[in-house]
């Protein structure tokens, strides 16, 4: 690296640059900071020097008192001289055309930066809302479940004395809760050990108070709490009876659903004769003789006075369930025939919007009495010989129909099996790669076919 200061005077910076070796930065810095180096001056062709028209006092140079250039800049900012600079509007037309003099006191204003910093509240607002929703749902779940349990205990306290008087087993053995909790809104109580009754099932379907969505739906369309009392009667002690009692609308629906009503209870009988008020209830039965012996004045009176609780009554010794229950695609076994008394009740509520309360549940005691009275009436029922003969024929026909159904289902199942077998054999044959094996399989099939057809041929000859 060669640098000769004497050269700079005549030829100016350009010659110095020629000898300068670019790679060596440190030496250059050293060279500049020695202070020997004169300010670069423009030199005309004939060697006269031209002083640059720069007011050096305005521009801060790096080597003032040997300090680093940047520091001096900062200090000068505070220098009062700078404060008088006017803010320059660059786009202004006058500014461009004028001789662009710097104003002596620049006004540098530092404005606050508006960088959008998102607070944690904004960032996690969605999550918080979702979490609040979950807490509200769980709170509603706990409150609704507690209310449901209070209603069940209220019903049990009102009915327990009567049940213990009539049944030797109330609730499932060794279960102090007595009730079997099927779901948060379905409770079952089983009672057994009584004359004329194998057992009695109380199923209480409460309104879904624990589910927030159902609560919202209930505001629009309220659903009452339902109690279904099902008494299982012993077959040998029960006379031939198929009988249904309900309002018109409900009865027509029942006549379409229940298979035993469809087959046996073809005749509709208005119930005015049995002490019911005009046209409120309608019954369908197999023999009218049975109705008059079952529906006594006492029973009719209970039903009339608690008409808002009563929904439907179904007594049958040929009960096999509804059509939906016996859908052949869903249920393969044939339904068993049982003797049952099914009493469907609604728990009345003072105001539909609020729904029923524990006090309303306690008022259902007379309906339990009604169920027990019906058991005794059915047990004492004795038909005359003619009606008995007639009902006997009906049952024989009904049994035939059930057997036919059984056979067709069995044949369909066997047919399905055969088809699956044939399909599996065919698939195996198609996938077989070894030609010899494939031939053997084909021969086997042909022999089977021959056997089937061959046997028939022999029969023809013997004739």
């Amino acid at each position, binding site marked *: 690296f060669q640098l000769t200061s004497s050269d700079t005077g005549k030829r100016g910076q350009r010659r110095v640059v020629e000898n300068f070796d670019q790679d060596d930065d440190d030496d250059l810095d050293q060279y500049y900071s020695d202070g020997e180096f004169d300010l670069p001056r423009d030199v005309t062709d004939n060697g006269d020097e031209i002083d640059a028209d720069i007011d050096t006092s305005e521009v801060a140079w790096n080597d003032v008192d040997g300090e680093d250039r940047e520091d001096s800049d900062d200090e000068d900012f505070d220098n009062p001289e700078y404060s008088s600079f006017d803010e320059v509007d660059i786009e202004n037309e006058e500014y461009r055309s004028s001789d662009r003099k710097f104003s002596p006191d620049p006004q540098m204003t530092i404005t606050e930066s508006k960088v959008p910093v998102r607070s944690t509240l904004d960032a996690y607002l*969605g999550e918080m809302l979702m979490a609040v929703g979950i807490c509200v749902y769980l709170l509603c779940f706990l409150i609704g479940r507690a209310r449901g349990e209070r209603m069940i205990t209220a019903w049990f306290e009102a009915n327990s004395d009567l049940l213990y008087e009539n049944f030797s087993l109330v609730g*499932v053995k060794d279960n102090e809760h007595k009730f079997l909790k099927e779901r948060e809104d379905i409770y079952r109580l*089983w009672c057994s050990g009584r004359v004329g009754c194998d057992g009695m*099932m109380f199923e209480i379907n409460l309104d879904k108070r624990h589910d927030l969505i159902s609560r919202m739906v209930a505001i629009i369309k309220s659903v009452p709490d339902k109690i279904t009392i099902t008494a299982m009667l012993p077959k040998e002690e029960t006379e031939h009876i198929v009988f249904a009692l309900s309002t018109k609308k409900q009865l027509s629906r029942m006549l379409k659903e229940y298979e035993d009503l469809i087959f046996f209870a073809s005749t509709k009988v208005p119930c005015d004769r049995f002490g019911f008020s005009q046209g409120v209830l309608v019954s369908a039965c197999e023999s009218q003789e049975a109705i008059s012996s079952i529906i006594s004045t006492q029973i009719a009176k209970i039903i009339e006075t608690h008409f808002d609780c009563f929904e439907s009554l179904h007594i049958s010794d040929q009960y096999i369930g509804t059509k939906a229950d016996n859908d052949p695609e869903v249920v393969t076994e044939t339904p068993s025939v049982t003797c049952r008394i099914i009493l469907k009740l609604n728990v009345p509520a003072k105001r539909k919007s609020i729904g029923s309360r524990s006090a309303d549940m306690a008022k259902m005691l007379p309906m339990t009495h009604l169920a027990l009275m019906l058991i005794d009436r059915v047990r004492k029922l004795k038909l005359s010989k003619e009606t008995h003969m007639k009902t006997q024929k009906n049952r024989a026909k009904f049994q035939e129909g059930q057997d036919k159904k059984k056979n067709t289902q069995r044949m369909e199942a066997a047919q399905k099996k055969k088809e699956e077998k044939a399909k599996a054999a065919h698939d195996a044959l198609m996938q077989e790669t070894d030609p010899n094996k494939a031939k053997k399989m084909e021969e086997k099939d042909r022999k089977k076919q021959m056997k089937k057809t061959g046997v028939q041929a022999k029969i023809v000859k013997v004739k």
Partner: protein
Amino acid sequence: MDGTIGSDPRRPQKVKTYDFVKDPPEGITSNDILSFMGLIFSVLGLLLKIKYICWLAVYCVMIHFCNSSYREEGKQTFSLVM
């Protein structure tokens, strides 16, 4: 109103224990639909990485769990929670 016969109607020797009466098949209930939706939302949430779909799946599973029957096997609910 007395629903009983004069003498004691109870017959301890005729007691029958409760054998879960084979309930007729209920068909597709609203609870089944909820569990199916929970499954779909959870898979979609994972694939598309959309936060709010995952929250919907959490809601479906919670509502299904609160309305499920006690006799239902816990496996289905456990697999849904997973």
